[in-house]
């Protein structure tokens, strides 16, 4: 857990392991404008040997990996820098890039060499970045990416001429197809051996500040290198006339969204059930092998069921990221963001927040990881902060249990739609309303729009590659299992210990006499106004690990089966909880941030404990307040 205490507010984190080991490793930074194919090249050069973290103290993602060199005299460490158009330090991304290049970023040595990657289908604009980068006088390879696109659309460039103009080697590459990547390895071998020297550029590099001047310089350099811009992408225009059609566009958008939602919600279910069954089976096997003991109980009832409850969400996460991967790599995500923008703008958000928020209906954890596609930091933060309000699938077991126990299923519209379904739908609406209200509150206060306007680059459509989709899935599942898994594991063990101590005559105590029971009694005065007793209190405390844990906990407390449709548990609850308390409990779960995995992932994505702490406090306060009001209203008998 060393990753957790080093970041409790301090700005200097320990460097990633790959940088620590070989202090004399050769460090190569990849720099380029957004959409130039930086990440694709990075994946191409490193394969799976990469680590994702945040740059210390900021929310900018840092990816570091080892290059797959043929000759391994010296380790070559690649650092993927955020996409920037210039080095003027106006955004967090640009500041980070500047700091790394200047060797001023804690934990990252000053790069020994640079890979400047530019989209050669748009060289006039991308070449502007070459001026400030080349004036750093570091060994630099200028990589002209998307060579296949340039050729197929009839463009051309003389690389030898461009190289002598710039005074830097130039490689024509297609990172997605792997074409020309050999030259990148050769360059890195050269710089690692210290044999690469830079020649002086033939052209004078312009001073940074004036954009029109830089743009003219880039144009002139391009002309001398016989650059012929490619023809407009015909297929992209054809596809856009369908996907951005005034009628078909929104229609296709809705179908795509419904398809994604449906698949992550129900399509993942067989896989999740299978995984669940596997975990249960594994528990049985352990129970067969090991004699009954306190250790076996910890292993099976504690660790296996607790960690299992998290791993079960993996199919949903993989499916969601498969979809997002396809949408993003194909270029459709930008179109979807365009179509959703107006609606999201009404809540103070933007088009790119839409897909993450929809996915939060399955689970907030992958949704929060999916906010990476939002470049605007404040919009991204606002999306992260409201995502847990969306009714995730972990709330369902709790909702089902309480609704089945307390809401009489009177038909409203025939037999299809009764009171119970209406209650469930109402809870979904409640979460959504809380989310948009919070978004408005945030965007009109602490996250008030920064001066950056909404700008969305439309990349040409292209086929997603299996390679990049696969890498993405592996990467995301590693992040999910490692981070969320460790926190969950810890909480599960702590809870189990609290429920089983202090021992009486060598046996675990009754739940009321355990430490957990004591905690339940201790919180009772606080939750009594909501209509909850000490048993619900234990449930609430245990559900901080994960919402659905309360069902199991209540099952244990009431000595009945810990499943949501258990009749015994329902009966016990009916006699122990007032109607006001029951509805208040539903409202509490709609708002409260009862999920360790979410807290862990928010900490990871925002680079510190500040935002998860604010979020947890806000959501718990809101949950408490609304549950209190609900209990009072129901108790006063307005509805009876």
């Amino acid at each position, binding site marked *: 857990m060393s990753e957790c205490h080093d970041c409790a507010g301090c700005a200097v984190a320990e460097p990633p392991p790959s940088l620590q080991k070989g202090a004399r490793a050769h460090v190569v930074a990849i720099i380029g404008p957004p959409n130039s194919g930086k990440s694709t090249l990075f994946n191409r050069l490193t394969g799976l040997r990469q680590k994702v973290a945040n740059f210390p103290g900021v929310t900018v993602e840092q990816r570091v990996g080892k290059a797959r060199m043929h000759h391994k005299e010296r380790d070559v460490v690649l650092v993927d820098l955020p996409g920037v158009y210039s080095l003027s330090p106006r955004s967090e991304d640009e500041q980070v890039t500047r700091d790394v290049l200047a060797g001023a970023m804690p934990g990252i040595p000053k790069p020994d060499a640079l890979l400047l990657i530019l989209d050669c289908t748009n060289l*006039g604009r991308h070449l502007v970045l070459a001026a400030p980068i080349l004036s750093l006088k570091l060994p630099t390879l200028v990589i002209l990416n998307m060579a296949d696109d340039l050729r197929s659309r009839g463009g051309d460039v003389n690389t030898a001429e461009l190289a002598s103009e710039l005074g830097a080697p130039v490689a024509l590459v297609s990172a997605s197809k792997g074409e020309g990547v050999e030259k990148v390895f050769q360059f890195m071998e050269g710089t690692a051996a210290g044999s690469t020297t830079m020649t002086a550029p033939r052209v004078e590099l312009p001073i940074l500040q004036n954009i029109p001047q830089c743009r003219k310089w880039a144009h002139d350099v391009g002309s001398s290198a016989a650059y012929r811009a490619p023809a407009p992408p015909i297929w992209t225009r054809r596809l856009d006339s369908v996907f951005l059609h005034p009628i078909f566009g929104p229609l296709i958008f809705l179908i795509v969204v419904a398809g994604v939602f449906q698949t992550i919600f129900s399509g993942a279910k067989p896989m999740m059930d299978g995984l669940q069954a596997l975990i249960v089976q594994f528990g049985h096997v352990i129970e067969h092998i090991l004699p009954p003991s306190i250790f076996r109980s910890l292993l099976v009832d504690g660790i296996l069921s607790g960690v299992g409850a998290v791993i079960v969400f993996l199919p949903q996460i993989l499916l969601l990221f498969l979809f997002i991967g396809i949408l993003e790599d194909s270029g459709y995500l930008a179109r979807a963001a365009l179509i959703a*923008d*107006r609606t999201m703008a009404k809540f103070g958000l933007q088009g790119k927040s839409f897909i993450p928020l929809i996915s939060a209906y399955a689970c907030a954890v992958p949704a929060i990881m999916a906010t990476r596609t939002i470049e605007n930091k404040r919009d991204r933060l606002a999306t992260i902060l409201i995502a847990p309000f969306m009714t995730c699938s972990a709330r369902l077991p709790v909702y089902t249990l309480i609704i089945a126990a307390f809401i009489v299923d009177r038909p409203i519209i025939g037999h299809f739609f009764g009171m119970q379904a209406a209650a469930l739908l109402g809870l979904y609406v409640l979460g959504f309303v809380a989310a948009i209200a919070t978004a408005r509150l945030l965007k009109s206060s602490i996250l008030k729009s920064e001066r950056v306007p*909404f700008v*969305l680059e439309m990349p040409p459509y292209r086929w997603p590659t299996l390679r990049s989709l696969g890498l993405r899935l592996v990467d995301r599942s590693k992040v999910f299992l490692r981070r969320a898994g460790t926190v969950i594991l810890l909480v599960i063990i702590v809870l189990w210990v609290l429920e089983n101590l202090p021992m009486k005559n060598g046996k675990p105590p009754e739940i009321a006499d355990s430490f957990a029971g004591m905690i339940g009694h201790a919180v009772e005065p606080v939750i009594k106004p909501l209509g909850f007793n000490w048993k619900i209190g234990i449930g609430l405390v245990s559900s901080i690990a994960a919402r659905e844990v309360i069902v199991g906990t209540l099952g244990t407390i009431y000595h009945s089966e810990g499943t949501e449709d258990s009749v015994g548990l329902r009966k016990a609850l009916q006699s122990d909880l007032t109607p006001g308390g029951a509805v208040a409990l539903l409202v509490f779960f709609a708002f409260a941030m009862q999920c360790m995995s979410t807290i862990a992932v928010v900490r990871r994505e925002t680079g510190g404990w500040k935002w998860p702490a604010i979020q947890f406090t806000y959501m718990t306060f809101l949950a408490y307040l609304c549950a209190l009001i609900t209990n009072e209203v129901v108790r006063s008998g307005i509805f009876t």
Partner: protein
Amino acid sequence: MMLQMSVNNGHVAAFNAPFARTLAQLPEGEAGVLDRLDLPDDIARRLMELGFLPGHTIVPARSAPGGNPRVYRVDGSEVALRRETASHLILRPSKPSGKTL
């Protein structure tokens, strides 16, 4: 200085200054030449980095339903802007020869 951006700005500008058209008023598929960016320095710089430079030709393309935001073809790429932003990009008075640049 010019931070108030409301959706209506484009229309207001149409009444006040009938000759200086903004990018928001340019019909889909018609080329216009950018004259200046009526925006604070940092925002203008951000847009200039994307190719919205004075003297460059811009062609409005497809849009989200309702025409906002809209995709603009500029400098070899396609960039979508909201109307509130496009209405601060002032075009040169249109001449038939606008496409030569």
